[in-house]
């Protein structure tokens, strides 16, 4: 089942790796012995039908859900994440499909949620006072690098933002804090053409910094534009891994939907 995947030749070992992940919700099997490999410095796209288990895979990899079976390796070491905090702590930053933002909190508060900076001195160490000026400044910088500074007020509650702006906040958060791996589950689903472009640029920027990225998307042109490799997820498991330079978009979609068998050397299971 988990035979090594013949794929685009890569010399290095995967930075994030999973073998035989299983996750069942009652009678629904979301992950059915799924494998996963993310190579250092690459953009890995994950595509698959609705309900194929892409989000479940990402949640299992980042501690948001606990797989029933299977192993996860980070830097070759087995890891077991009890909560998303554990994944964050080692530098894996995730944009979840539901964005994981607190609607009533401000943009700045959301960006720093769970790792708020404190002011220097006793006010910070003893009284835990937040460094609001710094939070505002850095939040503004993170958003403007995404071209999202059309947001007028950094203290605006997230619930008053448009769907696309919210997505921008979640992406800015992941990009600002990711230090080893950045994972994005459909980051451009609610974005306009111009904003999607910015996110694609951001993804390329992050890779240029040497960080690997997992991009889940239903947008084939986007996937084919930026991905180094494409992980095709089908029926809860990795169905194939293909090279976007060696396959057409329509063939990738055909493999994804089961209309076409994966090419021999890309078969993953």
């Amino acid at each position, binding site marked *: 089942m988990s035979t090594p995947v013949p794929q685009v030749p890569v010399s290095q070992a995967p930075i994030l790796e999973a073998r035989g992940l299983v996750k069942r919700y009652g009678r629904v099997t979301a992950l059915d012995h799924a494998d996963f490999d993310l190579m250092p410095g690459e953009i890995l796209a994950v595509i698959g039908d609705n309900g194929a288990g892409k989000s479940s895979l990402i949640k299992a990899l980042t501690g948001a859900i606990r797989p029933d079976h299977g192993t996860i390796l980070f830097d070759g070491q087995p890891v077991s994440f009890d909560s*998303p905090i554990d994944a964050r702590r080692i530098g894996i930053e995730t944009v979840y499909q539901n964005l*994981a933002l607190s609607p009533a909190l401000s943009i700045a508060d959301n960006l720093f949620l769970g790792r708020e900076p*404190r002011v220097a001195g006793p006010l910070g160490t003893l009284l835990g006072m*937040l460094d609001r000026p710094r939070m505002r400044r850095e939040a503004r910088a993170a958003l403007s690098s995404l071209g999202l500074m059309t947001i007028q007020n950094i203290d605006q509650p997230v619930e008053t933002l448009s769907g696309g702006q919210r997505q921008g906040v979640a992406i800015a958060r992941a990009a600002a804090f990711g230090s080893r791996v950045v994972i994005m589950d459909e980051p451009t689903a609610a974005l*306009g053409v111009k904003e999607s472009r910015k996110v694609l640029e951001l993804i390329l920027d992050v890779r240029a910094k040497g960080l690997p990225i997992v991009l889940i998307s239903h947008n084939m042109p986007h996937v084919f534009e930026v991905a180094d490799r494409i992980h095709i997820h089908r029926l809860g498991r990795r169905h194939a891994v293909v090279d976007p330079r060696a396959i057409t978009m329509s063939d990738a979609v*055909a493999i994804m*939907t089961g209309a076409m068998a994966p090419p021999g050397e890309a078969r993953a299971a």
Partner: protein
Amino acid sequence: MSANETPPRAPADFEKVAIGAQATVATFKEETPSLLKRIQHLLHVHPTAIPALVLVLSVAVFAMAGGQRFLTAFNLSVVLQQVTIIAVIGIAQTIVVLTAGIDLSVGAIAVLASMVMGKLAVTAGVPTPLAILIGVAVGAACGAVNGILVTRFRLPPFIVTLGTWYMVFALNLWYSDSETIRSQDIGETAPLLQFFATAIPIGDARLTYGSIAMVIAIALFWYLLSMTAWGRHVHAVGDDPEAARLAGIRVERVLMSVYIVAGIVCAFAAWMMISRYGSASPQSGQTSNLDSITAVVIGGTSLFGGRGSIVGTLLGALIVGVFRNGLALSGVNVLWQDFAVGALIIVAVALDQWLRRVSQ
């Protein structure tokens, strides 16, 4: 690989995303909103503006209706004394409600803590500071029980605290033998328990230490909730617990801390209760559960969690106090005081619902 290539075999899957996805491209130009919309937005950003306005208006109305007797420094200081305990218990209630919970046991915890403090200090001869400390520990323990039941056993806060309310009240009757500790005895052996009754005269007004302590407590919790990470986490947990968890917040730990802190705050309210009534009675504070919820709701804190403020709770307690006092001075039958408070609650919740619609 052209960008507008259509997959020949399965276009439906390709396009499925577009159906679920929001079709609107983020637009930033808004049409000029109506006045009502603008007010809605303003109040949404400054939720305490409503209770503040209501308080000012009701003071103005009673000043005109009640005439000389209402708007005196003395009478207003009486109102302040009357709302002190509810405002402090309201702090405990506010932090629980911010997490989208509710604490029906706050009043019972306060009474139990007051009986522990009183009985230990007066009957058992324990040094008063130690008795107070033990009372605070009892409050914290009651809060911890609530917290464990809510987090570990995942029971709804309403049911948990309804249950602990009965249990704590029964413990209180058992522990106190249903006997009141008399004011005189407390005054003789443990005057520290009456500390908060000490008053500073300012003109005609009598500003008690209790009122001052209440204002300090409100300020402290305002700071904790709005200026510290803990406060942000309390809001986030009440707002959307799953989002908070994914964002790396230890939701259960935050909830646990909230219920324990609420218990501790109730124990401080217990000390103030002994000061205010002089005695410690197992039958006192029967209405403080509902009164604290009333103050929280009128103060604009949403029962759905995530939004609200501690200053609002103080304002809410003051509004109720002003209504009761003003109506009484105007010679209105007590039953209409209750009627007015009931109407206030419903108006406050209706406003909250209206404000929440801003985001939809």
